[in-house]
């Protein structure tokens, strides 16, 4: 069957469809294997709309761009709908949950399931309080100067303290080493 689309125009259509399909796959982060299907969907729609092309209104490339852009938007919307249906779309934690008296999605996520727990940070409030009490008890066994150094080290590294005139770097590191031993002897474990 002989095509009614001239060879040069067909090349333009194929090139535009290829460009749009690659862009769409990249933007939606679709698998590479979907590229051919996306390209085919775009081409089928574009070729079906060729009868509406008016050469007096613009080039075939411009016409193809408009058509492909619209079809690409429809394909993207369809993909996003499918992802929402199967839970593969980022959701805002501030989004309110319907019929839940103003609760947000973030309110429904337990601390144990949050990002902090995933990264290994402590999320047990009782354990944190006990740790705080242990730290205060241990620091009570230090001299006042060592206690102040601990407070300063909670804000800055030993290098920064040395740079800001709190003592020589080597002596600060010696004190830190001694503090580590002293706090271990008092029952504190390294975080």
């Amino acid at each position: 069957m002989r095509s009614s689309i001239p060879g040069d125009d067909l090349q333009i259509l194929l090139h535009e469809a290829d460009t749009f399909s690659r862009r769409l796959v990249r933007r939606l982060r679709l698998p590479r294997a979907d590229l051919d299907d996306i390209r085919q969907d775009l081409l089928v729609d574009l070729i079906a709309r060729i009868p509406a092309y008016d050469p007096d209104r613009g080039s075939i490339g411009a016409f193809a761009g408009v058509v492909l852009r619209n079809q690409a938007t429809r394909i993207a919307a369809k993909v996003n709908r499918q992802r929402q249906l199967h839970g593969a779309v980022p959701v805002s934690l501030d989004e309110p949950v319907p019929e839940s008296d103003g609760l947000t999605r973030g309110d429904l996520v337990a601390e144990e399931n949050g990002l902090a727990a995933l990264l290994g940070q402590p999320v047990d409030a009782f354990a944190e309080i006990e740790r705080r009490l242990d730290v205060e008890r241990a620091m009570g066994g230090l001299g006042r100067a060592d206690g102040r150094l601990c407070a300063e080290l909670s804000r800055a590294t030993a290098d920064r303290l040395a740079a800001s005139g709190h003592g020589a770097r080597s002596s600060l590191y010696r004190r830190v080493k001694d503090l580590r031993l002293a706090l271990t002897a008092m029952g504190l474990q390294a975080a």
Partner: protein
Amino acid sequence: MNAISPELSAGRLQISEIDLCGCIGHAAPGAVVEYHRGFLALDLVPQVTRLPERDRLELGRVARRAWWAADRGLVHLVQRRLGPSAFAYLAVVRPKPRHAAISLSSLLQVDAA
């Protein structure tokens, strides 16, 4: 008075300073940690000890740490005689003090002021 024989100082390094701190910090009250066996006063003397130099220095740190812990009320230091000029040096873990002498919050506020 008998001459001090080098053979008397046959002690060896039992525990490192960090391990001693760990034992003191995490052992239950009443636990006994043997931090040296030998004759400590001689084992620390470089001209007499048979310990390698590195071990001798570490033993010095261990002994000072044991004394420090006793001074802070974390351990009782006792010795058990094993024979002539040979002792087991023991640290008996005491209950940890309950009340903090320094408040962490006050330290942080003072430092921020």
